[in-house]
């Protein structure tokens, strides 16, 4: 049913102005309590769902998972191993924010079993960091990376954001240069979206002149797409670059529709059974705690996918990866020829040069990459 485990830590020291995710400041003792709840949820879940094979990846996401104590992380991994069993080559990622970790703490995470670190750098520009409301400055960002290396991490990813308020193309280039200089194994590149309901949406109303427009933002995207591969990073997914095969196995699993179990507040799960079903957990700590206290799994909804849903997902998720979609694989999965379902959509998208087809493999063109939503929306039922 699944081969990946996601653990959500909904706590941050400060909420960033652009963040629309579920997170809040932890009260005293709350992290400790929450940690206990995570263990309990895993126990309960294992009674209902079991992985098809030993887990291939565990991902601590947030929020700020690096707020957990290394012992807590070790315990979570231990329980996961006991309840679900781990593959010998399991990838265990922890998202860490500069300013919340030092070398000692990172070493302890490494010892606890974490073998991949994802650092939320976002930018090396001090002014932009302040504008984003991050707790760290540029020096701390660099320091966090060096500490991680010294602590023994040989698989580190950096997150960068472009299209920040007032950011120029040359500022973005210097962020890219700096990232390359640090030589992480993996770089994620996201464009800023001003989400409704965030402080940013009030500060930067639609078409605000402070936010780089679509053309500028497209140029930044293209800058990354040209600079990073030159420096040896393979552009393997719309927002992701990796060196020497250091792709994120966990995240790639989302696009390949691998099953994953999500644990924690607001965590999402996708289990493979039939055409698959998705469910998500309660989005407040209170509801989450109450459900577990009553001995129930904290699911707030469940959505069983139809054949059409599953096919659409297969397309709009699979096309995010530059490995593309093979028509053979589609046929194996759904017992239908790809062209019989999406022939006309594919032809249209190929005609307008958003998709290309190469020996039975379908992928986004360079242009399609930037216009991927336009492509994906056409595959919806």
């Amino acid at each position, binding site marked *: 049913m699944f081969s990946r485990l*996601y653990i*959500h830590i909904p706590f941050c020291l400060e909420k960033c102005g652009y963040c629309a*995710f579920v997170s809040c400041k932890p009260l005293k003792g709350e992290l400790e309590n929450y940690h206990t709840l995570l263990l309990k949820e895993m126990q309960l879940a294992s009674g209902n769902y079991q992985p098809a094979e030993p887990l291939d990846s565990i*991902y601590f*996401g947030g929020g700020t998972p690096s707020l957990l104590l290394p012992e807590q992380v070790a315990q979570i991994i231990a329980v996961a191993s006991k309840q679900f069993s781990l593959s010998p080559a399991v990838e265990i990622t922890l998202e860490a924010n500069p300013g919340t970790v030092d070398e000692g703490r990172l070493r302890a995470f490494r010892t606890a079993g974490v073998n991949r670190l994802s650092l939320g750098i976002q930018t090396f520009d001090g002014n932009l960091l302040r504008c984003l409301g991050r707790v760290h400055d540029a020096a701390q960002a660099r320091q966090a990376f060096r500490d991680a290396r010294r602590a023994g991490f040989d698989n580190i990813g950096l997150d960068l954001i472009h299209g920040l308020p007032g950011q120029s193309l040359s500022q973005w280039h210097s962020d890219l240069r700096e990232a390359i200089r640090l030589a992480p194994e993996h770089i*994620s590149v*996201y*464009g*800023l*979206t001003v989400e409704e309901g965030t402080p940013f949406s009030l500060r930067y109303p639609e078409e605000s002149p402070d936010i780089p427009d*679509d*053309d500028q*933002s*497209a140029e930044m*995207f293209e800058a990354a797409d040209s600079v990073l591969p030159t420096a040896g990073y393979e552009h393997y997914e*719309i*927002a992701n670059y990796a060196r020497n095969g250091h792709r994120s196995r966990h*995240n790639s699993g*989302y696009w390949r529709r691998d099953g*994953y179990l*999500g644990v924690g507040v*607001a*965590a*999402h*799960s*996708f289990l493979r059974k039939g055409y698959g079903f*998705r469910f*998500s957990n309660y989005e407040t700590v209170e509801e989450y705690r109450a459900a577990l206290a009553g001995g129930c799994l904290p699911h707030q909804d469940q*959505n069983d996918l139809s054949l059409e849903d599953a096919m*659409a*997902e297969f397309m*709009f*998720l699979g096309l995010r990866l530059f490995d593309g979609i093979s028509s053979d694989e589609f046929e194996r999965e759904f017992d239908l020829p790809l062209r019989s379902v999406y022939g006309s959509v594919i032809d249209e998208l190929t005609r*307008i040069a*958003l998709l290309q087809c190469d020996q039975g493999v379908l992928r986004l063109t360079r242009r399609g*990459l*930037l*216009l*991927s*939503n*336009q492509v*994906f*929306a056409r595959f*919806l039922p």
Partner: protein
Amino acid sequence: MDISRIRNFSIIAHIDHGKSTLADRLLEYTGTVTDRESKNQFLDKMDLERERGITIKAQTVRLNYRADDGNDYVLNLIDTPGHVDFTYEVSRSLAACEGGLLVVDASQGVEAQTLANVYLALDINLEVFPVLNKIDLPAADPDRVIQEIEEIIGIDAHDAVRASAKEGIGTKEILEEIVRKIPPPEGDSTAPLKALLFDSWYDQYQGVIILVRIFDGTLKRGDKIQLMATNSSFEALKVGVFAPVMREVQELTAGEVGFVIAGIKDVADAKVGDTVTLLHRQCLVPLDGFKEVQPMVFSGLYPIDTVQYEQLRDALAKLKLNDSSFSYEPETSLALGFGFRCGFLGLLHMEIIQERLEREFDLDLITTAPTVVYRVHKMNGEVFSIQSANQMPELQSTEYLEEPFILAHIHVPNDYVGGVLALCEDKRGVQREIKYLTQTRVMIIYELPLNEIVLDFYDRLKSITKGYASLDYEHLEYRRSDLVRMNVMINGEVVDALSLILHREKAYFRGRDLVSKMKELISRQMFEVAIQAAIGNKIIARETVKAMRKDVLAKCYGGDISRKRKLLEKQKEGKKRMKNVGNVELPQEAFLAILKVD
């Protein structure tokens, strides 16, 4: 009924000057409705009317009032529609009365719309007396307004009742004035029936309900009645009054006002202004003033989703049941598919119908820019009317075109005269007169082409005068004019629904403004989109919408695929509200862009 105890009256007021609220107070004071019943503004029945604060269909209601002289009176309040589009209906409602209350906002003073209606009333010798409303407002300046009424309208206003309909001040005084100042009707109840049909509407249970004012004779249930203008006859199945709900009575006699239900199926058979008489005892001469109302403004209505065509047709048929002044016929557009060409009395009428279609019938519509009726004179002597640019014949075969002109009365505070004059000149107006009504208030009279009015005249007038101007107009005549057809092309394809007829001198500016406005409205597409305006083969303006460059979803958080999918679905939904013309998705607003250019 004792005819000397009847008073038939209207309330004449500008929008917002408190007509409906005053009517409510009169109903309450006379015990016609209780407080609890008086869902505020009893007279404005339709939701739309209540929302916009205007009266669309006239209503009428009978009030019983014991006056200070100890006698019981029957007061018939005959409501009038309050907008320039419905002048004819107003004139017929007024014709059913002997008098009118001129309600003027004590802080605002006299407005053009009020003036127009007062003149209608004075023209037919109604006894008009003023009421100063909103006297409770801090900005009220009764002395100034009294002076204004006397100077502008020329009626005595020194003893005008000072009222506040909102606060219930002056209600009794108004009732006493109605009894004292308005003359009772005159008429002979034994003469052959002669009644004015001053309103009609369709009720889904009872068929057409008509409102009549009896001038001579008596109308009883069971009478065979004859409508003189349409030359059709019916049986009066029910006769009654609104008090305020429908109440049947034995008979309506000379001087009275009431309703008749006569099994009429179609409002088109119950035309406002017609004379009702008895089939077997007809009056010799019908009442004066009957007029067929003609739609003056036309626009195309198309469902965005073609499957709603049938629904739209049914909805139009239903609205037509209640509104004979509105017309529709099927029309096909290359760009928009199947739809209807609809005719309206004016712009407000058009907006009301469109809003009802969208609201009451849940339709998503594209409306094309409104146009007027042009007259084409062909070389071969043929003359015909066209209501859309697409009906315009080849230039070579056309000798000349004519367009309708109106006479506009614009009433404006002194400070804005310059701006209004500039606007009228810009709209190809011909000045008739500028009258200083008082030191500070000016009446500007212009002859203007109606096609300029239907585009954006109102909006611009309002913005130039910060809302202080009021406008009234009447139709004047057709005049020869140098008109051309302007086409709009999207990626080289003519979009027929965007073609329009305009004056040659205006075409270049309008064309340029239009394409630049459309550029703002059309979102970026997969390809570059060229927007061009052309007269004949000559391109007069061009803009380009650059191709879309970026449309990428940001970070996927913890495998939340549902959220991603919802975003994509929203995007797909948005596309459904667009109209595909060629390969280009056009939003609804693009079809009305011409209204947004200066």
